[in-house]
C-alpha cells in the first residue's frame, strides 16, 4: 500500500513544483458561478489571474443554421430560446425585421402590447440578475426574494401569451390571439385577458416594493459595496470597442439606449430616462439595472394608460413569402442590443439569419477584464456582466 501511495505523493509534489509559476485552474463548464456551461481556463498564481481563456460553445445549438430551414413563423419559436430569461424581448427585433421586409406594420394596439411585454421581460430579466449577482457574492437571501417577486411578472406574461419563458407570441403583422380559439371566436376574446391592466398596475406597485427591498437588502449593504465598488472597471472606450451594450455600456457612462435612439415600438410617446452611471465598475452595472427596473415600471404604467383599442393583427398572406432584401433589425433587449440580420431571397425561409446576441459581445471582454483580478473578483465581475449562456452560444 505504501509504495503506491508514496509514489502518488511524490507525483503531486513534482507537478506542483512545475506548476508553481502558473497553476492552471479550470473553472467550469460545471461550476456554480458560470451560469450554465461557460468554461474559463485560468492561469493563476496564488489567487491572482495572469491569463484567462474563456471556452464557450457547450450550448451551441446552431440556431443560425436551423433558421435556414424554418419558415419565418417558426423562427420566432426558436429565437425566444436564445436569451431564455427574456424570451419575449428576443422575438421583437426579429418580427420587426420581417415586417419591414414584408412591408406590413402591426396595428397600434399590437405595438403597445409588444412594448408592455418587452418591458415585463426586461423587469423579469433584471430580477434574475438581482438573484444571481448577490448570490455570486455569497448572499443567498436576495435570490429567494427576487424569484418570488419575479413570479408576479411571469404570471402576467403567462396570462397573455400562455408561456412563462417562451411566449412565441409575435406574428408577422401583429400578435397571437390570447385565447386559443383563433379567428373562429369573437373579436373580444382575441384581446388581452380580462383585468390584465388592473393586475399589471398592481404588479407594478409590487415592483416598487421590490425595488425598495433590493435597496435595503443589497444596495445599502456594506459588504456588497466593499466587494463591488471599483472592481472590474470597464472604461467607455473599451466597452464600445468590445461591442458591449445595454446596462453594461450605460454603467460606463455611455447613454446609448436603442429605445431612445432607434425608432421602433411607440417608445417615443413615453416619458422615461436612460439610466447611466459613470464608474463602469460592478456596482455601477448593478445600480443601472436597479434603475432600469424602476424605469420599466414607469414605462408600463404609462403604456397601460395610453394603449388604444383596435385590432391586433394586420392583414398578411396566409403563406408568407418574404420579398427579396436584407435588413438589420435590432432592439433593446434587457441585456443590450439584440439584432438580426435577415437575408431574404424571396422564399418562405430566410437565406441567412445572423443573430447578433447580446451576451456574446458582452462576454467577449472577459479576457481583457479578468487579467490581474483575484478569483473572488472574477466571480463578482462575471455576475455583474449578466450573461445567459444560451445568449452566448446560440
Amino acid at each position, binding site marked *: 500500500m505504501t509504495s503506491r501511495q508514496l509514489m502518488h505523493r511524490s507525483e503531486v509534489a513534482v507537478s506542483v513544483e512545475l506548476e508553481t509559476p502558473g497553476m492552471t485552474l479550470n473553472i467550469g463548464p460545471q461550476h456554480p458561478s458560470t451560469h450554465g456551461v461557460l468554461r474559463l481556463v485560468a492561469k493563476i498564481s496564488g*489567487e491572482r489571474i495572469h491569463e484567462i481563456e474563456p471556452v464557450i460553445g457547450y450550448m451551441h445549438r446552431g440556431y443560425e443554421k436551423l433558421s435556414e430551414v424554418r419558415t419565418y413563423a417558426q423562427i420566432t419559436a426558436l429565437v425566444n430560446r436564445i436569451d431564455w430569461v427574456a424570451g419575449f424581448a428576443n422575438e421583437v427585433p426579429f418580427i420587426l425585421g420581417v415586417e419591414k421586409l414584408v412591408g406590413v406594420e402591426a396595428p397600434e394596439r399590437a405595438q403597445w402590447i409588444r412594448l408592455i411585454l418587452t418591458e415585463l421581460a426586461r423587469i423579469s430579466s433584471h430580477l434574475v440578475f438581482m438573484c444571481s449577482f*448577490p448570490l455570486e*457574492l455569497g448572499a443567498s437571501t436576495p435570490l429567494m426574494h427576487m424569484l418570488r417577486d419575479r413570479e408576479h411578472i411571469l404570471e402576467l406574461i403567462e396570462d397573455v401569451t400562455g408561456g412563462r419563458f417562451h411566449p412565441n407570441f409575435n406574428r408577422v403583422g401583429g400578435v397571437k390571439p390570447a385565447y386559443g380559439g383563433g379567428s373562429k371566436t369573437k373579436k373580444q376574446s382575441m384581446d388581452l385577458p380580462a383585468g390584465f391592466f388592473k393586475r399589471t398596475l398592481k404588479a407594478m406597485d409590487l415592483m416598487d416594493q421590490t425595488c425598495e427591498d433590493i435597496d435595503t437588502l443589497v444596495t445599502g449593504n456594506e459588504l456588497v459595496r466593499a466587494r463591488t465598488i471599483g472592481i472590474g472597471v470597464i472604461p467607455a472606450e473599451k466597452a464600445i470597442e468590445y461591442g458591449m451594450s445595454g446596462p453594461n455600456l450605460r454603467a460606463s457612462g455611455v447613454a446609448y439606449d436603442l429605445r431612445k435612439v432607434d425608432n421602433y415600438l411607440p417608445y417615443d410617446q413615453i416619458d422615461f430616462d436612460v439610466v447611466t452611471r459613470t464608474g463602469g465598475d460592478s456596482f455601477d452595472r448593478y445600480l443601472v439595472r436597479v434603475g432600469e427596473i424602476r424605469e420599466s415600471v414607469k414605462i408600463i404604467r404609462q403604456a397601460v394608460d395610453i394603449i388604444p383599442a383596435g385590432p391586433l393583427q394586420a392583414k398578411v398572406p396566409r403563406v408568407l413569402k418574404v420579398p427579396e432584401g436584407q435588413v438589420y433589425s435590432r432592439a433593446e433587449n434587457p441585456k443590450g442590443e439584440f439584432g438580426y440580420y435577415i437575408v431574404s431571397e424571396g422564399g418562405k425561409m430566410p437565406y441567412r439569419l445572423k443573430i447578433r446576441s447580446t451576451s456574446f459581445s458582452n462576454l467577449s471582454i472577459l479576457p481583457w477584464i479578468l487579467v490581474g483580478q483575484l478569483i473572488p473578483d472574477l466571480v463578482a465581475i462575471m455576475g455583474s456582466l449578466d450573461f445567459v449562456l444560451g445568449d452566448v452560444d446560440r
Partner: protein
Amino acid sequence: MNIWLELALTLVVMLVVVLTASLVTIYVELKAGSHMQARIGPYYAGGRWGWAQPLADGAKFLQKEDLAPAKADRPVYRLAPFVVMMSALGIFAVIPLGPDLVGAKLDLGVYFLLAISSFSALGVLMAGWSSANKYSLIGGLRAAAQLIAYEIPLILAVVAVVIQAGTMSLIGIVDAQQATLFTLGGIEVALPFILTGQLVSFFIFMIAAVAELSRIPFDMPIAESELTMGYLTEYTGIRFTMFFLGEYATVVGFSAIAATLYLGGYGAPFLPESMANVAGPAILLLKVSALVFVIIWIRFTWPRLREDQLQSMAWRWLIPISLINIAVIAVFKVAF
C-alpha cells in the same frame, strides 16, 4: 463511582447532547433561514414542520458511497473529518453546564478551549491538501490563513476576560460573574461580564468566532460560488456528514464559550445555589440559542468578504482594538 463508568457515562451524555444540539441547530438554520428568505423550508419530514429533516438528511448521507479521488492522499483524506469532529467535540469537554455538570474540571479550561478549537484548522488543511483538487487546495489554504489570522483576536478577546476574572478556569469565570458587585436597595446585584466592561471584547470574540467557523460573511474557504465547495468539494457520504455536523457542533460550541465567558454561563440572577445544577443547563441553553440564532441570522443577511479584506480586517482592526481593550481592562483591574 468507578472512574471508567463515570468516563463512559460522561462521554455518552456529552455525545448525545452535542449531536442533538447540532441537529437542532441544523434544523433551526433550515427553518429560520427559510422564513428569512420568504420560503417555507422543510415541511413534510417527520409529519409536522419538517422536524425530522436533519435526520432524513443524515440518513441519506449515511447511505451515500464514501468516495475518495484517485489521486487523493488517502490516509490524510480519511483522517481529516475526524480531526475536525474531534476538535468540535473537544470544546464541550470543559464547558460547564452547572457547578458540577462539567466533563472535565480543568483549572486551565480557557487554555484548553482555545487549543482544542484551533485544532480544526489542521483538519481543514489536511482535507484541502489531500483531496488532490485545486479548488480544495485553495480552500484549504484560505482556511489556514483565515483561522490563523482570527485565532489572534479570539485569544486576545479571551485574555481580557481572563484578566478581569483573574482565573483561567471556566467555572471560576462563571463564579466571578456571580459575585456581588454592589447592593441596590438590599438586592445584591451581579452582572455578566458583557455589562461590566467586556462589550468590546464580546464583539471581537463573536466576529472572530464566525470567522473561525468559516461561516458567511467569512466563508471563503467554502465559497461555493468561487471554489464550488472549497475543501469539502471531494467529500461525500459519512465523511461529509462529519464535516457538516462538526461545523454545527462548533457553532454551538463557540456560542457556549461566548455565553460562558461573557453572558454569565449557567448562572442567572437570583438563582439559588442549590438550583444551579438543575436549572444551569437550561439557562445556558437559552443563552446559547440566542447566540446561535444571531450567527444564523448573519448568514442570511450578508454576502461574503474577499480574502484580503478579511485579512486586513483582522490585522488592521480587530487585533489593535483588542490590544487596546486588554490594556484598558488591565488598567481598570489594577485601579479598582
